């Protein structure tokens, strides 16, 4: 914005004037100008930022329409270089299968996605074979049922949206494949939502069939609380409190939405390391090569006779 050139010209003009007519014995007009500019710029920036954030976080009488802001939970994969806890993903899938899969689909995750992430190939094959999938047509033209394979998707609880709405009093349980990326607040929001069920405050009426949850925008959510202490038994012996169960299922959902997170963070760390080193090297090499040009002096030796007569 303000190049060194334009500032310099301004400064010299101010200083030039002061050199000829100044009566100040303190800081010169040049430094006074600099100081005033700094104060003005920081005041403008501070005022601008303040007004922006006040506007953004304005309190209003209708804040329940936004939903209560979820707290900042210490999920390890939220940190800049943090990765998933795969044991948690494994427990989370068990919770999903036993509690959530009754109503929620997970269309974008296939059985093969779980291999070498949370389960071994044999375990996934065994889990897939417990379900029946429609396949075909066979040679006579009829569709047939067969046990699941690694290439099949996680089974849907309802065949289509209408069936889902009919079974849930008109409400559609959303697909959870991308839910942590699809909701403002991400993992924090999902965790707060699942653990946040409580009685509505005095004066708030929730109609029959809906449940109060302060984190849900509007406050009235169709899903009832499903996660309680001991609702799932973990095979690795982890204590099955409601908060542990919720933490694991949220970690699983985060993995489902961002399976590339572990690799992405590793490659990102490598990239940051390499690019910052190369940038510093490039800056140094540039300045080194330009030194000869930037420090050269050009001398003008004026001719002895300035004759206006043209040479013959």
């Amino acid at each position, binding site marked *: 914005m303000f190049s060194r050139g334009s500032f310099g010209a301004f400064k010299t003009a101010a200083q030039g004037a002061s050199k000829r007519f100044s009566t100040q014995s303190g800081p010169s007009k040049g430094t006074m100008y600099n100081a005033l500019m700094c104060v003005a710029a920081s005041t403008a920036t501070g005022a601008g930022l303040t007004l922006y954030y006040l506007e953004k976080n304005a309190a209003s009488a209708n804040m329940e329409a936004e939903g209560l802001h979820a707290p900042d939970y210490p999920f*390890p994969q939220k940190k800049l*270089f943090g*990765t*998933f*806890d*795969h*044991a948690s993903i*494994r427990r989370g899938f068990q919770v999903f299968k036993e509690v959530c899969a009754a109503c929620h689909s997970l269309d974008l995750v296939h059985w093969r996605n779980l291999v*070498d*992430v*949370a*389960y*071994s190939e*044999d*375990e996934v094959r065994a889990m897939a074979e417990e379900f029946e999938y429609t396949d075909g047509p066979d040679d006579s033209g009829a569709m047939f049922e067969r046990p699941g394979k690694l290439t099949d998707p996680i089974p849907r609880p309802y065949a289509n949206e209408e069936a889902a709405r009919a079974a849930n009093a008109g409400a559609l349980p959303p697909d959870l494949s991308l839910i942590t990326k699809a909701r403002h607040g991400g993992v924090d929001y999902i965790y707060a939502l699942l653990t946040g069920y409580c009685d509505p405050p005095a004066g708030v009426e929730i109609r029959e069939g809906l449940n109060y949850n302060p984190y849900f925008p509007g406050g009235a959510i169709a899903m009832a609380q499903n996660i309680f202490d001991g609702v799932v038994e973990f095979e*690795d012996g982890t204590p099955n409190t409601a908060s542990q169960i919720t933490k694991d299922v949220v970690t699983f959902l985060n993995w489902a939405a961002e399976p590339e997170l*572990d690799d992405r963070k*590793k490659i990102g*760390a*490598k990239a940051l*390391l*390499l690019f910052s080193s190369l940038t510093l090297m490039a800056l140094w090499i540039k300045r080194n090569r330009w030194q000869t040009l930037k420090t050269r002096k050009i001398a003008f030796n004026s001719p002895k006779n300035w004759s206006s007569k043209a040479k013959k």
Partner: protein
Amino acid sequence: MVSGFVKSLSSFAYRNFFKKESTYFTTIVATGVVFSIGFNSMFDKYWDKKTAGTKWEDIKGRYVEN
């Protein structure tokens, strides 16, 4: 002297690697390959130590019978 050694080292490098374009190119590619292998293996070792116990490979032992 140290500076003399550095000068003769850089002269050696220039004459044998940087002067001809073919050798220069080979040097660049070879340096890239060696750096890539070395950097990646060192970084992966550090990263695996940093994420010890959280990856599938670390909990695999409990669930796979070999």
